[in-house]
């Protein structure tokens, strides 16, 4: 079998944080190669390097016998590499045909577009693949799965030899996934290669020929899918230490403090839950399950559409500031987008939420703030030089700790953490778990949303599994396992 891609000794760091350390990747002609790893393992970074979006700090890419060190996007496109991003890059306000031929329009005299010929070519391409999309339709009207296929077709039209698919199945139904896999198989026979990024084991074992596993920016293993098992791959992905360490401890829980009564909101319905003082509860569920939306509604970031939220006997409804005044704090998901205020210093980021609660004293006392920060810094073991440094000078894990501290500093008794360990390295993850346990021990109620089941097993007293906007199951600590949670969160099983 012919090797078409070899990436060797690739390293990359962002502002002092190593995201890739000397990794390798080899892809053969006519294969689907699964690239595996947890969030933050470095898969996307490597793919961005391969497609010329990012430049590696060191290492070499060999594609179809040619060497590249720091290629540009255009170079890699010309060489025959296409990247179908997770967030699709189609233009909604153009037709299907116009999207496929964008920047390489077929023209007649005077540079006028030959619409007829373009439509004809598109039809031929779609027929050969068994894609049933109307070439004249506006892309806005397509389903997500169709947009995905459109992107793949677009890549094929440019005669790409290697197509990168970044979690292509996240928003697809089972039939749509089958359809996609049918098309991939057909293309594989024609000699096209795919790099398939996913963490859904059944899919990988259904479609992939070979695999490569990364963990925390390092190359871990590689081989033929037929020679391995999902269990082996999973342990490669999460690492031994990660699975083994058990930090959970049974604690005496306090009285019930927070209840959701028949709560409905954006993307979820009729949720009944209650939480106790000092309790750690995990929310989990696949994209679109409503877990994150419930959390945002509990913080006033999304509106309550029905039912009620009661904290210590008081019904809560209002702005975010109102919920904060009532002792609720939320660390949002996606740190870079929702937490980091990049032009402010560490201290300013730390204090920005507390300021909302103390507006009666409009003038800042720098010395008092600094003292408070130092205290939290000590407590949360934040590694930072000066509080006047930019927040962006810190590593992901330390940034996240600053934001944890920011919410502690508001005096919140109920802490909502939406994906708190996303985009932080393994070491920092463990630190964050320890901190969550410490918060609970000191009497805070912690509710965290996560997609990673090992996290749930490590620290949660209970786990609430969401499916299609409903609570599918409430599991006690001892009942949580990867398989049970998966069954509930995919709707295979339901408690109610």
């Amino acid at each position, binding site marked *: 079998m012919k090797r078409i891609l070899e990436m060797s000794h690739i390293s990359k760091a962002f502002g002092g944080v190593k995201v890739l350390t000397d990794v390798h990747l080899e892809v053969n002609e006519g294969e689907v190669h699964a690239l595996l790893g947890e969030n933050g393992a470095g898969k996307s970074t490597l793919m961005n390097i391969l497609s010329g979006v990012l430049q590696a700090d060191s290492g070499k890419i060999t594609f179809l016998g040619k060497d590249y060190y720091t290629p540009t996007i255009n170079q890699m496109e010309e060489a025959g590499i296409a990247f179908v991003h997770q967030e699709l890059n189609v233009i909604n306000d153009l037709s299907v045909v116009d999207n496929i031929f964008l920047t390489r329009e077929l023209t007649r005299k005077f540079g006028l577009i030959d619409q007829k010929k373009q439509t004809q070519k598109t039809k031929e391409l779609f027929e050969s693949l068994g894609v049933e999309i109307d070439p004249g339709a506006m892309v806005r009207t397509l389903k997500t799965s169709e947009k995905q296929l459109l992107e793949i077709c677009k890549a094929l039209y440019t005669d790409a030899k290697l197509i990168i698919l970044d979690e292509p199945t996240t928003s697809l139904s089972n039939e749509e996934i089958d359809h996609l896999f049918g098309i991939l198989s057909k293309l594989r026979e024609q000699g096209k290669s795919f790099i398939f990024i996913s963490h859904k084991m059944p899919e990988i074992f259904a479609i992939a020929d070979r695999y490569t596993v990364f963990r925390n920016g390092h190359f871990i293993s590689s081989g033929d899918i037929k020679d391995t098992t999902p269990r082996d791959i999973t342990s490669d992905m999460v690492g031994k230490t990660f699975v083994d360490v058990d930090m959970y401890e049974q604690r005496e829980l306090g009285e019930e403090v927070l209840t959701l009564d028949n709560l409905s909101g954006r993307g979820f319905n009729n949720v009944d839950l209650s939480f106790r003082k000092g309790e750690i509860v995990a929310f989990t569920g696949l994209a679109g399950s409503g877990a994150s939306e419930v959390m945002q509604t509990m913080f006033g970031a999304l509106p309550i559409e029905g039912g009620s939220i009661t904290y210590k006997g008081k019904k809560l409804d209002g702005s975010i500031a109102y919920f904060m005044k009532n002792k609720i704090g939320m660390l949002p998901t996606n740190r870079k987008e929702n937490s*980091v205020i990049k032009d402010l210093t560490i201290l300013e980021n730390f*204090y920005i939420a507390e*300021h909302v609660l103390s507006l009666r004293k409009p003038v800042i006392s720098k010395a008092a703030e600094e003292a408070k920060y130092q205290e939290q810094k000590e407590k949360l073991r934040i590694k930072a030089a000066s509080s006047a440094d930019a927040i962006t000078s810190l590593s992901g894990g330390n940034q996240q700790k600053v934001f944890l501290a920011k919410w502690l500093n508001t005096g919140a008794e109920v802490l909502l953490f939406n994906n708190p360990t996303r985009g932080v390295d393994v070491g920092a993850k463990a630190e964050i778990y320890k901190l969550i346990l410490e918060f609970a021990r000191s009497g805070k109620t912690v509710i965290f949303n996560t997609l990673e089941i090992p996290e749930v097993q490590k620290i949660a007293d209970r786990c609430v599994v969401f499916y299609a906007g409903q609570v599918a199951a409430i599991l006690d600590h001892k009942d949580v396992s990867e398989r049970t949670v998966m069954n509930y969160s995919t709707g295979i099983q339901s408690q109610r």
Partner: protein
Amino acid sequence: MDKKQLTKQVGAFWAHYSYIVVMFVVMIVYAITISANGSSFRWSHITAILSSQNTCIIGTMAIGMALVVLTGQIDLSIGSSLVFTTSACIVVFNITNSILAMIAAALVVGAILGFINGALVGLAKMPPFIATMGTMLIYRSLSLSVVRSMDTAISGSTSSQFAMLRANSKYDFLRFTFGTGKILSIPYITLVFLLMVGLFIFVTKMTKYGKSIYAVGSNEKAAHLSGINTTFIKVSVYVVTGLLVGVASVLQACKLGNVTPASSGKSYEMYAIAAIVLGGISMAGGKGNLLGIIFGALSYTTVNFIIVSIPSLTVDIQDTFQGLVLIIVILIQTVSPVIKEKAHIARRRRQAEAEGKQN
């Protein structure tokens, strides 16, 4: 090693205080043109720059513009607002002969005009550029149509101007004691401008309100999720701008004694933007130090003075030079990181290829 450290320090200084360097360069050029004209550079040249209406009036309004820009918005109406508030405060002065009433009128009217901008942008969610372009047209044209129909005993002048009535007993104090007066050779109106800059440096650096302005401009979503009422912040900066326009209109009235709706304050919004950009405040929002406005406004005025002091240049060419200075300064700021990045990648590429050959 020492050399490397020095360049690093110089680089850091440039990154934070380029506006000071810019001002000194411009000043030196001014000094050279003056000596080329055969006279010598004196303190009086500097006080002329300090007391120029470009520095004080535009500078005061530029503080408001800076706050608006820090939140990631823009206000194109400040020149027209200045005309409107100055008209209003002159009329009030002519009727009441009261300094307090005049100042109150300027502040209240300014705040109302600012609130209208803020409401359109923050509450009705209109794009700031369009909303304030609309009010820019409205505010000036309203003053214009009023001045034409007003009794000259109240407007204080002919059909095209509002002027303070000389017959009023407070006229001399406002115009001559305050408007053109000096203390320790620094004009009073310059002191008002510096006082305002000082006040707002304090607001932006030392108050919670100030920090939330930066937060909204830097990452509005994160600011919102931190509990900040982002709508309030976005509306309030327009109101504050209106108040500062009110202050500027009192300065305008006292320094010049009149306002001509057809021509006064034209393009002042552009000059204010130029002053804050020269002062190192990012148009993208969230970044910049209000201290820069002093230097930005001074640099901007000085460029004007340089052009005037060169006999062979006419006033017509003035905007060309101002435009060029602006473009050059911004070019240096935007291009230097790009060049740095390019150089870094090129170095990387050479290294990688050299390694490749060795293997």
